[in-house]
């Protein structure tokens, strides 16, 4: 983690113009003094382009605040609620006096705390559906029964674990609440660096600044994922990153890579890279080498864990790496700020920071090769809130995208190219299998996204179950493989109007007329619903979605009364207008939303 002092952070914050970023309202419910965490929260928010406003509930007023004690603490404007319930304050018996309690007294405390958790969570939910990050109970560093604890099934450790499991399951039942494990921060820092017992006694503030920074950065891993700011692609240098030494000079047998020191550090680093790959991170190579030297290592080195198949695209040449990273982004059809670049050279790292600041850079310090694996694991930049089956296949799917791009060059005209892809489309209503992926697309899609509204799984469930809205997805398959769910449309119905609340497509599948088919089929559904005369499409400009500004206009909608005061554009469509689908490109269009009698599943 970054080793920044508070004064550096405060100076950084005061120098930066936070007002240009969207506000992010954080409310903290707590039974400890926690005010010193505020600058760290604001700093972490700034890193992902948010202007955090932090409000604190009353000290030890978690329950009262949850059920509506303080007026403006929890509201529909709240974006995130941090809950801290330290056991020492919640139950001084369980935390500090455990050995004096009888079995029935312990049970009574457990029951009381479980009720408390249930009531606080339902109290919060009556006021807001916002993201809840609830910090679990820390395990005692010196548990009550000493060495006996590890032999007992009803000791203090077991009791606290039991409470944590209960809390986890409660949060799991809620679609927008997550368990933050403080024990991870505690283990990473060690108790002496995590707790400041002086301020615990003087002011009931238990944590050191280092701990607060680590906790804030852990919280922002969730927020980053929720806001779709998590990274998608890891671009790797080769020499002195994937292996020790320079393959062009040291040769295949001269590079350091293997089960023993010093090659073991690179071996572990590769294991960490594959961990990320298995979680859906796309791998790319960006290095200065002769390409055949690199592939020789991949094919022939016995301890090379990463195989050619894991790599989706490469730029192995002698050009500058800024140009190469831009090419990688283009090949994969992703934005530069979705890429994390790893290099050992200070020169390359500074070049990228200067020329392509959108790319996140991790510098691997040559003197600390043993820590490369940990440095990569600690960044948390790729963390996601859920792992869908699409994620696990992502590398393969993007590889197919790169193959499609190559394939395209063989065709004289686009139409014959589209036809040769043998695209099959499936359009259906959201269901329990598709909702996690739908929420994920809503949170992550930036470019082809007309309104960029971010929804959680809970939101999608609500829309899907309501009579006043439809949630529709589109799946795509072609000769290169199954792309899975690649687009989402959310229709909301008001009086005689059907409003396109959300219309988005994954950038992977752009340029294949899929958006047009999707729009046509959803308009057919609106017509079939019968009660609605016009469809309304809106465009909310962001830094990334200018390509869809004219999407509705180009597809038969008319712009309504341009409002000079806002940059939002509004378009309308009379449902009686005749539709002209470009279905000739597609091998098959299975629009299930328009097939069933009732409309919904």
């Amino acid at each position, binding site marked *: 983690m970054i080793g920044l*002092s*508070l*004064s550096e952070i*405060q100076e950084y914050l005061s120098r930066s113009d936070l007002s240009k970023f969207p506000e992010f309202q954080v409310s903290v419910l707590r039974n400890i*003094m926690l*005010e*010193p965490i505020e600058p760290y929260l604001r700093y972490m928010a700034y890193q992902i382009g948010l202007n955090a406003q932090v409000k604190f509930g009353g000290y030890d007023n978690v329950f009262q605040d949850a059920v509506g004690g303080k007026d403006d603490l929890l509201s529909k404007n709240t974006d995130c609620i941090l809950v801290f319930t330290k056991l020492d304050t919640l139950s001084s018996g369980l935390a500090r006096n455990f050995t004096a309690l009888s079995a029935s007294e312990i049970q009574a405390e457990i029951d009381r705390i479980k009720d408390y958790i249930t009531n606080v969570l339902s109290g919060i939910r009556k006021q807001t559906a916002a993201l809840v990050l609830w910090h679990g109970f820390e395990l005692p560093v010196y548990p009550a029964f000493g060495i006996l604890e590890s032999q007992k099934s009803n000791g203090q450790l077991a009791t606290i674990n039991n409470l944590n499991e209960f809390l986890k399951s409660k949060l799991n039942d809620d679609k927008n609440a997550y368990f933050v494990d403080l024990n991870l921060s505690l283990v990473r820092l060690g108790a002496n660096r995590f707790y400041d017992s*002086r*301020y615990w*006694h*003087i*002011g009931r*503030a238990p944590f050191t*600044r280092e701990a607060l920074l680590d906790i804030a950065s852990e919280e922002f891993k969730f927020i980053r994922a929720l806001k779709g700011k998590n990274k998608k692609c890891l671009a790797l240098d080769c020499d002195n990153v994937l292996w020790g030494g320079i393959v062009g000079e040291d040769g295949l047998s001269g590079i350091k890579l293997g089960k023993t020191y010093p090659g073991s550090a690179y071996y572990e680093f590769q294991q960490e890279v594959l961990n990320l790959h298995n979680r859906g991170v796309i791998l790319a190579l960006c290095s200065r080498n002769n390409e055949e030297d690199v592939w020789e290592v991949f094919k022939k080195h016995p301890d090379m864990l990463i195989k050619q198949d894991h790599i989706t695209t490469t730029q192995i040449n002698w050009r500058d790496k800024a140009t190469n990273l831009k090419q990688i982004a283009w090949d994969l059809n992703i934005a530069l700020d979705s890429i994390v670049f790893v290099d050992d050279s200070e020169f390359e790292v500074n070049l990228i920071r200067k020329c392509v600041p959108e790319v996140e850079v991790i510098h691997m310090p040559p003197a600390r090769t043993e820590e490369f694996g940990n440095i990569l694991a600690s960044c948390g930049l790729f963390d996601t809130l859920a792992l869908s089956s699409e994620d696990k296949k992502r590398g393969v799917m993007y590889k197919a995208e790169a193959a499609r791009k190559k394939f395209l060059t063989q065709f004289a005209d686009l139409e014959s190219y589209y036809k040769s892809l043998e695209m099959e489309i499936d359009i259906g209503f959201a269901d329990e299998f598709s909702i996690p992926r739908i929420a994920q697309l809503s949170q992550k899609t930036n470019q082809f996204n007309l309104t960029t509204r971010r929804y959680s799984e809970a939101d999608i469930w609500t829309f899907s179950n309501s009579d006043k809205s439809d949630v529709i997805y589109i799946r795509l398959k072609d000769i290169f493989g199954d792309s899975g769910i690649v687009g989402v449309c959310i229709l909301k119905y008001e009086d005689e109007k059907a409003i396109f609340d959300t219309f988005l497509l994954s950038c992977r599948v752009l340029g294949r007329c899929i958006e047009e088919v999707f729009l046509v089929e959803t308009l057919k559904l609106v017509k079939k619903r019968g009660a609605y005369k016009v469809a309304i499409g809106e465009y909310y400009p962001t830094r990334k979605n200018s390509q869809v500004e004219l999407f509705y206009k180009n597809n038969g909608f008319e712009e309504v009364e341009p409002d000079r005061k806002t940059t939002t554009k509004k378009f309308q469509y009379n449902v009686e207008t005749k539709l002209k689908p470009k279905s000739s490109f597609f091998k098959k269009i299975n629009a299930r939303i328009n097939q069933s009698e009732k409309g919904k599943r």
Partner: protein
Amino acid sequence: MKNRVIKVVSGIMDTPIEKLDEESSPDTVEKWDSIRHMNLILALEEEFGVCFSGEEIVEMLNVQIIIETLREKVVQ
């Protein structure tokens, strides 16, 4: 030493340096409450590379005492 302390106090208490002197304390500086006092102590520890005891923390309630406490700890 005095200037460095006052600079830290000024930053934490969000109060101009000109308005601070050795007599400044929670009684004379409006924003000097218990939370900012905690931040002040942590900032002083960071600035001077020292560590105060709990007893010292609760007594360091004006700039003069802060300077004296620091003098005992910092070898100049």
